[in-house]
């Protein structure tokens, strides 16, 4: 029986070591990808291509989700605030919750599902079909040629997507709150403008989305690069990307919120 318990402990230890090892590998991988100087004349067009598949292709889902979330927030907020005669505060409520929380977080979750999983699958497939090896044999570092442009495209796209999400959300709230429920437009905007601050709300939301973009893309490209080169390995890596990114987003969101808005 005691052997059984020891085995369990050893298993746990091995699991812990594996995890730490893979975090270490991911760190080295990231540093190599970011700080390697790409010697290609066409690295700008490589980045453009990735901005297209990572950023532009995520636009539709981000815009549609933002619109609906803004509309729902306005509707829910109105129904509660009308009881206190403060329906003017709907604008303020929607803007603050979008800029501080929902914009960065929901965009990052959608981004992980849409772009992150696609990145992992694409890189994993390139590994499975030996494209990465053959690139190495031709004398090109896949970290520079394949990983770096995808990573930067993710980091650049995320804040832009989050800004679009928040703006579309607020416009959705205007549609529901002002045009449909009949909140007076002037006080809708003025209550918003009185409480939203450029640095504390928009700036911090932007920082959040940058951090999320960095982490999600990092997880996605590493999982693809580290995938076991079989179809099963790639599909597992894709699942891991979505799970790890979602957990990382929500955990980091709490930490960032505590640091940014903790004193208030």
């Amino acid at each position: 029986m005691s052997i059984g318990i020891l085995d369990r402990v050893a298993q746990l230890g091995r699991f812990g070591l594996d995890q730490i090892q893979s975090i270490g590998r991911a760190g080295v991988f990231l540093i190599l990808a970011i700080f390697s100087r790409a010697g290609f004349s066409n690295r700008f067009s490589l980045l453009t291509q990735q901005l297209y598949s990572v950023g532009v292709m995520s636009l539709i889902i981000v815009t549609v989700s933002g619109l609906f979330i803004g509309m729902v927030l306005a509707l829910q907020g109105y129904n509660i605030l009308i009881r206190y005669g403060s329906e003017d505060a709907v604008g303020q409520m929607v803007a603050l919750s979008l800029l501080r929380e929902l914009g960065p977080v929901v965009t990052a979750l959608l981004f992980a599902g849409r772009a992150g999983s696609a990145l992992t699958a694409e890189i994993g497939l390139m590994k499975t079909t030996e494209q990465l090896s053959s690139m190495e044999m031709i004398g090109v570092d896949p970290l520079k040629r394949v990983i770096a442009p995808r990573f930067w495209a993710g980091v650049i796209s995320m804040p832009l997507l989050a800004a679009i999400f928040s703006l579309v959300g607020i416009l959705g709230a205007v549609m529901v709150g002002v045009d449909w429920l009949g909140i007076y437009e002037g006080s809708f905007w003025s209550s918003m403008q009185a409480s939203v601050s450029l640095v504390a709300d928009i700036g911090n939301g932007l920082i959040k989305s940058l951090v999320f973009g960095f982490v999600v893309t990092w997880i996605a490209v590493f999982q693809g690069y580290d995938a076991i080169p079989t179809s099963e390995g790639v599909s597992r890596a894709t699942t891991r990307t979505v799970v790890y990114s979602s957990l990382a987003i929500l955990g980091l969101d709490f930490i960032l919120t505590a640091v940014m808005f903790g004193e208030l």
Partner: protein
Amino acid sequence: MTEASDNFIEIRGLTFHRGDRTIFNNVDITIPRGKVVGIMGPSGTGKTTLLRLIGRQLRPDSGQIFVDGQNLDLLSREELFRTRRKMGMLFQSGALFTDLSVFENVAFPLRIHTKLAEPMIRDIVFMKLEAVGLRGAWSLMPAELSGGMNRRVALARAIALDPAMVMYDEPFVGQDPIAMGVLVKLIRMLNDALKITSVVVSHDLNETASISDYLYLIADGEVIGQGEPDSLMNSDDSRVKQFMNGLSDGPVPFHYPAPDYKKALLGGEVG
């Protein structure tokens, strides 16, 4: 040193482990310049691993590998990339870049390693594609090619930089007889026309034997036989015989090691 210039690749005392498994145990292989050398053996004996060791995508646990007289272990990163330019490699799956067209795939190594003007690159690419008979397919994407065409484009890419040696990783696997015949002819033809060294890793006996000048037979991490194809065919070694004649049982057993079947049936412990 005269030997080094005659032999493009020399492998001395190569030992390589993957986990607990010994893939190679003190293996010596010599690949002479300008010849087609076949490296054969049952599946799972690490033939692909050997090619990766030669390209130094993997490093041996012990032993030396010389490519064109240079010890791979002592090369700096820069020198390694320069040495790799002398080696073209045809991967098992072709490994064409799926997001580039046939033309761009073949042009890829040229764009990376040379500063040639666009018309020049165009001429070279069409020349290489002509050599594999696929000049007409230059605008297609890899997904639109058949398996055999895919491998021929990959071959054109492998020879784009005029390497001194081309390594073929299982070139015949999964090919129909026609595509196989085309590849066999191409490998021999390119070897003679471009005066390059060819290493063919395969377990397809007849095709490999028909084009090779020299054969190595690898099993259980060791070289179990070597020689010209004819002499290997008539070898007395039982292991060589089993492989060359495709016998199902012999020194390489049909059964995976297991406890006695009768005992297992009678309710003995499994494993």
